[in-house]
């Protein structure tokens, strides 16, 4: 295990604490609702209501209800203009900052895939209809990927924090957390905010449908009858801090991030290498980064999109590296929230560590007989969880894994 003051080569590695977290997803608003949904194995995928899916194969997604997301007390004009993604980020960041009001980040690193895409869609549709473009400046100004990050900082922190927005497709959230972890571990930064967000959009929904990657049925990761993914949306934030400094100032330490692995497999722009080499390298590198063995991992939150190709490659890589470690894909409950997925799943892993349970992989009937996995089928269950691995893989052959360790109170 990399300890404070330990060295790799000539370099001292700092330990990295998670001192706060916030989340908004189809599972709920905040950590408590998320925990409750996970324990109850709640299926949060519903019929799509945001746009027409009449011509799509897939008709469902994990969605955040607008009445709760946008229906708050803030009636200012600015709040009305913000994109839904900004509202998700604001709520997630607000929850995190309430836990550590004195947290002053030096940097924010956030993952996303599509920013405020639905505003781009509205603008384009208005052009096509030669319609009313009075709102075009608002749509255009709120479209960029960094905007929800800056909005959340302005609303919640009231300070200007430099931000880096990583768009590594579906691995973005885990890449953001992993890079933030490296920034603190290297000693270059003491406090970094990190996480991810994405809001459902017609363009992205239709895109996955066109690839036949999404399913008209239930999302069944690793199942023999899996037929594809369903999309989701949400945001999650983690506040990372040098562990020694966090303890010195009496900040809560929710968990410790101990390892990060990234790989690029260059096989195909939308499909993983069927050998599983990309995911395997990411997981191996995370283990090496943490200086732990595969036997020390108690739970794997898989990427588990339920596409035929992803689950085959990831399943193969997991079974090559780990021996019977419990695995679940919580996308079965809430859909795949793309750039937010890695961040939300890091929060879910954190909850598993703090509350000593295994989150479920729902809609599961029978394991794909080409896979050798210990799937946490359909129900959550109590377990000793000291170390969790969270995987995210994306278009372009980008793969990322992080390791999170329980910290005793």
């Amino acid at each position, binding site marked *: 295990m990399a300890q404070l003051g330990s060295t790799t080569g000539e370099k001292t590695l700092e330990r990295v604490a998670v001192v706060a977290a916030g989340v908004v997803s189809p599972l709920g608003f905040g950590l408590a609702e998320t925990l409750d949904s996970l324990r109850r194995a709640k299926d949060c995928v519903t019929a799509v209501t945001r746009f027409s899916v009449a011509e799509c194969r897939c008709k469902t997604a994990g969605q955040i209800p607008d009445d709760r997301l946008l229906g708050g007390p803030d009636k200012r004009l600015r709040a009305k203009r913000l994109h839904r993604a900004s509202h998700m980020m604001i709520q997630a960041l607000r929850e995190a900052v309430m836990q550590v009001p004195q947290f002053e980040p030096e940097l924010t690193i956030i993952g996303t895939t599509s920013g405020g895409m639905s505003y781009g869609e509205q603008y384009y549709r208005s052009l*096509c209809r030669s319609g009313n473009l009075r709102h075009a*400046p608002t749509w255009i100004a709120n479209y960029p990927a960094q905007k929800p990050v800056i909005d959340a900082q302005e609303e919640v922190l009231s300070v200007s924090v430099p931000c880096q927005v990583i768009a590594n497709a579906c691995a973005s959230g885990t890449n953001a957390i992993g890079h933030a972890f*490296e920034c603190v571990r290297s000693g270059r930064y003491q406090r970094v905010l990190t996480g991810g967000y994405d809001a459902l959009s017609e363009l992205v929904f239709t895109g996955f449908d066109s690839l036949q990657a999404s399913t008209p049925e239930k999302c069944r990761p690793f199942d023999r009858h899996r037929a594809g993914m369903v999309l989701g949306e949400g945001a999650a934030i983690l506040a990372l801090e040098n562990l020694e400094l966090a303890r010195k100032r009496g900040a809560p330490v929710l968990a410790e991030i101990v390892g990060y692995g990234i790989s690029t497999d260059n096989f195909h722009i939308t499909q993983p290498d069927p050998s599983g080499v990309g995911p395997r390298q990411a997981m191996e590198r995370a283990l090496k980064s943490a200086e732990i063995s595969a036997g020390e991992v108690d739970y794997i939150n898989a990427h588990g999109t339920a596409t035929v190709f992803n689950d085959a490659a990831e399943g193969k890589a997991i079974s090559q590296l780990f021996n019977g470690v419990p695995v679940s894909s919580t996308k079965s409950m809430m859909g795949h929230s793309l750039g937010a997925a890695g961040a939300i799943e890091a929060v879910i892993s954190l909850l598993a560590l703090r509350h000593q349970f295994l989150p479920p992989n729902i809609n599961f009937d029978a394991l794909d007989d080409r896979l050798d996995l210990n799937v946490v089928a359909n129900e959550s269950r109590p377990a000793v969880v000291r170390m969790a691995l969270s995987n995210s893989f994306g278009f*372009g052959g*980008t793969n990322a894994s992080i390791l999170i360790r329980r910290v005793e109170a």
Partner: protein
Amino acid sequence: MSLAIAGMGWVTPLGNCVDPVWKRLLRGDEASATPISEQFGDRSYSAFRVPESALTSLAHPRLRRASVISRFAATAGLEALQAAGVKVDSQNAGRIALIFAISNGGVIYTRRFYRDVVETGAQSASPLLFPETVFNAPASHLAAILGVTGTTYTVVGDGAVGLLAIKMAEDVMADMSLDYCMVVGTEEVDWLLCDAYRRWRLLRSAPPIEPFGKQKRGMILSEGAGAIVLAREGPITIERAHPGGCYGKRGEAEEILKGILRDLSQVEIDFVISSANGTFIDQAEQGALEQVIPDAITYAAKPALGESVGASGLWQVILGAQALSYGELPPVLHADPAISLRLARSRVAVAGARQTIILSSGVNQQVAGLRLALR
């Protein structure tokens, strides 16, 4: 930790390859504007586009269906690697990181994909176009062409994103197991982008870009790519990369820029490469420069090359490195003689110059800066 520039690559509306483009800028050349029109009404715009001839030497199966944004990036990236004398093979593929800076991304294919959805329905959506709409498509193509197997990031932002990507490269290179990090900024122009910026009152319909002008008539979009290979040692170093900042209201940009300039001007600064593009950011940069380093010579390339957004920060770094290496600055085009800044109004010798500040201000709330030094 300071990193050195080991190689550079450039694809611009004035052609490709670093030295030929540099010579044209020194001569005072300006890119030719091309009209762009679309089916929507009679709105037509002008943009500085990369000439077809700049991409003819590149043929790779991975780029067969890719949009021009990926071709620009690959062309610039390969030139930078060649200039650095780096050959990627199975032995070192994991020791090279790749970081992309992008703002609008693959907008041409995004518009085509969504047009089909809007006009003929979701069943017409193309599974070939969709993957190219994803922000990291250009990075994944270049990674595949080169065989890079380790760290690959795509950073998105506004015109400041190029410098933010270089800052990220500095953080990534804290991992001493990496030998090189290639940073690529790339962008493509489309009618839709021109229309969006025009409706936001940031774009003028035809050249020129008038830097630091009182009227703020707007920018002209351009396209292309810039690439730099960062190594541990070399004659030109990124001595300090500021982490940047975000402004809420436009009026706040100047204060953040002042902070960046104060941080970077702890040593004597010989000249500044500004990101002035004919919009409100010019006023912010001018105010900050006049307050913090009023005597520094200022150069702005966007009147000659256009606003390439995600690529622009890398272009500015290439310009700064070239000016330090050759001791000259090109002329700033279309600048009002009454502007109080010390502008390089004609080709100016800066022989003996050792340090320059690159200042990037985006129109979507981000600003950044870094200092280059000639050792």
